[in-house]
């Protein structure tokens, strides 16, 4: 059992390192097509990373080891997400159950590392990005926790793989109002968490509108590669989680070649589908003002809170 779980974790790790750049490539491609361009092809993120790894990073004078360690921390926290979340299978390592609060705190480690990278060189834009990034992160956290709390009530535990397993066995749960409200809230929170529109515009060149981009302005070469890969992995992993919560079918519950194949294909399909939806959806969205973001998050927070209380009071 333990070995099976570790094997699944390894499979998820390797597969998502392969999948994440592809997802980003797909999102960009969809956007390009809808904007009337040919697009760089779905493999472009791969080429970007390969190139960045070959370059000699430049460090700002007076910047510290944070500029080297921060990106690695971001990457590792995202990799931990990929290893622990129930993506390909719902088996979880006995000593490290993919507990909701642990997962969220691992995510926050990455968030903090990124914010410190932004501050390290001591440039104006870095600080600006870092400040905005942390503000959004602080406001997102309640929504994320409450949303998954709402989802956890039917399963009676905060272990994500059990939650997904429960939804797999009793699909009726998925359509319950609680779950619907919670999923909407969670989706919004994830958009904010991964810096997509309408909270942050990942493809902006205008520093004043940046959050994530502004923090990585000083990073180059390998450091930049880790940062980018880290954020892509996070996006892919969270999309995978969303997909498995919304449609848990295909996720494996026991280890066998056949089920592994099915699990991989299923999660890839879900993530890529969500990626396409995301790319297409972003065409129709504009970035909201930074100070309208709290409204958005308050909205999703309200939905999540309603979901939780309702799930207690209705049943």
């Amino acid at each position, binding site marked *: 059992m333990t070995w099976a779980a570790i094997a699944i974790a390894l499979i998820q790790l390797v597969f998502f390192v392969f999948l994440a750049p592809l997802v980003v490539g797909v999102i960009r491609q969809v956007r390009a097509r809808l904007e009337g361009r040919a697009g760089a092809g779905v493999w472009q993120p791969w080429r970007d990373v*390969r190139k960045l*790894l*070959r*370059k*000699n*990073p430049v*460090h*700002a004078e*007076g910047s*510290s080891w944070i500029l080297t360690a921060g990106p*690695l921390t971001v990457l*590792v926290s995202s990799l*931990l997400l990929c*290893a622990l979340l129930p993506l390909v299978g719902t088996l979880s390592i006995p000593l*490290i159950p993919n*507990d909701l*609060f*642990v997962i969220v*705190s*691992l995510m*926050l480690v990455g968030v*903090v590392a990124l*914010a*410190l990278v932004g*501050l*390290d*060189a*001591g*440039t*104006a834009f*870095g*600080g600006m990005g*870092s*400040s*905005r990034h*942390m*503000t959004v*992160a*602080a*406001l997102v*956290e*309640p929504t994320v*926790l*409450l949303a998954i*709390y709402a989802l*956890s009530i039917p399963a*009676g*535990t*905060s272990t994500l793989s059990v939650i997904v397993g429960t939804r797999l066995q009793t699909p009726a749960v998925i359509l319950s109002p609680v779950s619907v409200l919670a999923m909407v809230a969670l989706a919004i929170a994830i958009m904010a968490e991964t810096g997509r529109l309408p909270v942050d515009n990942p493809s902006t060149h205008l520093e004043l509108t940046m959050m994530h981009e502004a923090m990585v*302005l*000083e990073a180059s*070469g*390998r450091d930049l590669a880790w940062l980018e890969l880290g954020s892509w992995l996070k996006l892919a992993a969270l999309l995978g989680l969303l997909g498995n919560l919304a449609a848990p079918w295909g996720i494996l519950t026991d280890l066998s070649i056949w089920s592994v194949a099915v699990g991989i294909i299923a999660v890839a399909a879900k993530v890529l589908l969500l990626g396409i939806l995301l790319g297409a959806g972003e065409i129709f969205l504009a970035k909201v003002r*930074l*100070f309208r973001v*709290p409204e958005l998050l308050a909205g999703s*927070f309200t939905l999540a*809170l309603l979901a939780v*209380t309702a799930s*207690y009071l209705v049943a």
Partner: protein
Amino acid sequence: MTAVTAGMLAQFVLASITAALAFSVPASVRAVVSGIACALTAAAGVVTGALVLAGVEGSLTLALALPVDPLVFEPTRLGGLFMVVISSVGVLVSVFGIGYAHGTAAARTSWMSLAFFLLAMQMVPAAADSVSFLLMWETMALCSTILLLAEHRNRREVSSAAIWYSAMSQLSFLLLLGGFGVLAATVGSTSLAAIGSSVSHSPAGGLAFVLLIVGFGSKAGLVPVHVWLPRAHPEAPSHISAAMSAAMVSVGAYGALMVCMRLLHDGPLWWGLAIMVIGGVSAVYGILQASVNSNLKVLLAHSTTENMGLVFLAIGASVVLRGSGATAAADAAMLAALLLTVSHALFKATLFLGAGAIQHATGEVNLDRLGGLLRRMPWTSAAFGVAAMAAAALPITSGFVAEWVLLQAFIHGSPAGGAPVSVAVSVAMPLGVAIVALTAGLALLTFVKAYGIAFLSRPRSAQTTASEVPVVMRISMVVGAVAVLAVGVLPGPVAATVASTMRLTREPLVYMVGAGGISIPGIGVLLDPGALAVLAALIMVPIVVIVLIVSPNHPRRLSALPWGGGGSRARPRMQYTATSYAEPLVRVFDDVLKPSRDVQVTHLGESQYLVQRVQVEQRVTDLIESRLYRPLLNRAQSFGKLARRAQNGSIHLYLGYSFAALLIILVVVAV
């Protein structure tokens, strides 16, 4: 005479010796001698507490020349736990003080009162009856006031802070006096054990509960009686603020825990809800104030309010859950409360000592003028960083474990046996999760700001001369940080010990799993940060391998100016400051913080369309202070003016008063 008795006696003796030494030895060696002596006093506390936790019993009776019964000290296991926590902070503080204390902070009085301050704090949890409790409590308050006043010659603010502080601590003392009085009256004994055994939920019990909770809450720095914290801490010498903010507030928490676990246990639901409300409000309000503050020590003080708020939230949750039948979750919540207190004591001590080190090195605690200390003060930055992670509840620190247990207790609130969830639980628990989450998020921002602005980026003012602090100060900070990490990586032993101090519904509450992980079978959860750390380390390996394969000729790192758009080199003044870092947050919480902005535009003489300079000033004040206390104080003042008229110093008037009084008494007696 058991070892515990001996230990408590030793603390009294050592404290007295310390005071004597501090008084007698010459100033040249005073710091070293009395610092070591204080450390020994505290160490005696650690040992005694450890013995109590190990199950040794013992009592100490001191007959005083006071017209009261002899003082009795007989620590319970809970008391033992707090004795350990408080006096370990005491050790760190004393050692740090050797290097830190200078000027008036190193005077005789300061060291003497530090000794008695530590003693009093260590003995409060040991008190077995309300009289000795209150006596130790008051000693603690007085000594801390003296310590707070240490630097009053140098700065004017000190005295006003001291006035606020002593006013608040006297208030809390009076409340406690009232509370214990009521209890003693209803039970007929001042012994805490007697009170605990004959628990009464009568109206009198309710009254006592309210008085005690508010009294302890004010010492723990809860809203709305928190106003002394942000004033006292920046003015006190840093090792004293560490002692106050890490140890003394824990004494306040101990009081609340004692009330809810020992004196008035299994209280009605509304007690729990009331504590939850106070705690929740304090947590959110405290961290909001902290996140928008730029003075490092004020920031830390407000974050103390936040952490104590969380502790009270947990206590209240435990009462509510017990009241509505979810006993396992109730125990878990209480465990969370204790873990939060322990973890807070450790990391807050380290943080304040770190702030002290910064002040020592740069003479500055205003974040807006700090920066780039990482390379100049590597030890301080490392210790402060670890403690800040704990304050932000990040893994693998003690803070994370504590908040994790709390959240788990919240979400497992549905009672055993599938009974329907009470409305109170179904509303209070989600809100509790929301509060903890929001608090954690804001704490994250606060401490990223504190660390990033102070240690990263470039110096914002001339601290190019700053250098690492003396080795004793380094040692105490690093020890604190190591303790934070130890509890964070191997929470198992600590949690088990903590759980052994509680009155449990089912034994045992906590099992150890793996290397040092914890599992709480009652609510079926498990956490092993050690395994998590190992996994993270294992994941690092392939990355390194990949790096070696993809780019074997290790790209050499070039250095260049910070990118400032190619224009003139980016000056330190262009960096984000702590104030600007928190600006978005101030806007988001505009309605709550009500910052006062004023914008001054100076136009050119020639034309009013050309602006010469724009000056923007934004100040965030403590709303509760300005809206609640100011009016009260003004009232009091006007009343005082009134009273002065009756006090014009004429002897005849006073005689007249006494004559009138006599007549009235006679009338009363006659009727």
